């Protein structure tokens, strides 16, 4: 474990100076600030920000993660020739990347809220859940990126596969759900819908944040049912467990693949 921590530390050192990450932080900061200035009340800022976050965070984690892992391939070879085990290298690198990206995300979205004085009081909980879910997405999609970059020797395939996945999860999946709802609107589709939403980490995250805002009332009967389930203790436990699972699966698969890989 000690070796993984050493690698993690150096990864963070390397990454926090990366122009890409700094750029991403500045961009998020600017977006949040703009939403604040023009979005009116902070509740609406959180809603708008949520849409930005759930679109951008998975994409950035996937693309930067994949590119970063590919670009460090030759250095990995040097590390692998050192007395370190492969598990420490993989987990150290993944944890380092995730930590750096999480930091950037937390600063970029959280800082404006603090500066505008919403760090405490009513909005603190809402901002906290947005940040928490955002961090979960960073972890999940960074792990997926590392998995893709380990599995595919070819960069184009690796990058292509993560972009396809992002497009599917953030656009196609919702479209298919809407089609299904439309097709089955005569049937009680709410329970299967709730299950299907859970199968997409981005949707699941969005629901968790939406429920913290007062706009779920706008979603009618379905919204009420969602609120009943996801708002309950069981619902929260199940959704958290699902998010953990979504992170664990790519981490474990990536690690297994990295341990067996030829360099």
């Amino acid at each position: 474990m000690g070796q993984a921590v050493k690698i993690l530390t150096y990864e963070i050192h390397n990454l926090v100076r990366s122009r890409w990450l700094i750029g991403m932080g500045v961009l998020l900061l600017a977006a949040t600030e703009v939403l604040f200035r023009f979005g009116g009340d902070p509740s609406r800022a959180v809603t708008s920000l949520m849409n930005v976050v759930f679109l951008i965070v998975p994409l950035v984690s996937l693309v930067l993660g994949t590119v970063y892992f590919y670009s460090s391939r030759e250095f990995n070879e040097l590390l692998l020739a050192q007395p370190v085990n492969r598990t420490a290298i993989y987990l150290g690198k993944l944890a380092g990347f995730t930590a750096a990206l999480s930091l950037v995300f937390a600063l970029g979205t959280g800082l404006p809220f603090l500066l505008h004085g919403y760090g405490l009081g009513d909005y603190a909980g809402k901002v906290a859940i947005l940040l928490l879910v955002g961090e979960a997405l960073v972890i999940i999609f960074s792990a997926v990126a590392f998995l893709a970059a380990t599995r595919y020797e070819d960069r184009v395939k690796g990058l292509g596969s993560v972009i396809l996945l992002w497009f599917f999860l953030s656009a196609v999946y919702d479209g298919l759900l809407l089609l299904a709802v439309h097709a089955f609107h005569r049937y009680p589709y709410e329970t299967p819908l709730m299950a299907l939403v859970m199968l997409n980490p981005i949707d699941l995250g969005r629901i968790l944040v939406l429920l913290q805002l007062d706009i779920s009332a706008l979603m009618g009967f379905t919204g009420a049912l969602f609120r009943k389930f996801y708002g309950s203790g069981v619902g929260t436990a199940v959704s958290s467990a699902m998010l953990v699972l979504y992170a664990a699966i790519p981490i474990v698969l990536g690690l297994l693949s990295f341990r067996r890989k030829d360099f």
Partner: protein
Amino acid sequence: MRENDVIGIENLSKSFGGVRALDGVSLAVRAGTVTAVLGPNASGKSTLIKCILGLVNPDEGEVHLEDAPVKGEWRYRARIGYMPQSAKFPENLTVDELFALLKDIRKDLPGSGALDTELYERFGLSAIGRRRLGVLSGGTRQRINAAIAFLFAPPLLILDEPTVGLDPLSAVILRDKIRDQRAGGRTVLLTSHLVGEVEEMADHIVYMLEGRPFFDGSIDDLRRLTSEPKLERAIVRLMEENRSGASGQNTDVRNS
């Protein structure tokens, strides 16, 4: 494996997508010698080295370092210094930070004693310690690469085309260093395309061809076998004879 073999390789095979990179290789590297692995491109030199380092998992066969099999192990690499063919380092770290990382990794491991900073100093790396690795030229990266391999004074050095990309002065410094290693009783395994370099430094030659050691013996053995005084010509002669004569038969002088 004999008593003073550092590396023992038995029946090692590896295929990449149907192409046989290594085809039942058995070899031994004796302690205190400089062994050069020669051969055309794609003859299996790099795969062989990577199997020893555990970077590539062989399909069949075993690699032993001293007495222990290396499969699934990682601590044995504390006894190896490796210089890859080319290296890219994390762009935003400085030269000093890279060396600190590598020292940090080996800190608590047995067999990591006094540091050998000779190359680090002679290559002038202390002067560029604060530079970012991303802005360094290929030649400078290669010098760092070499300094890293020798830094921990390991008993075994594995160098993959060590002088390629180095300026003539640095190449001379590196060759001197390799010779010093042998004088100090250390073992060196290197690959090279430069026959002159091999002739100058190596005691023992392994000529790889299509995933097999086609010739495995000393330079003198090779000369005697082919009655060619020049190493380059001896190798060519060896290949020609093999092509016209009984093809596929390995010429392992040491065992005869």
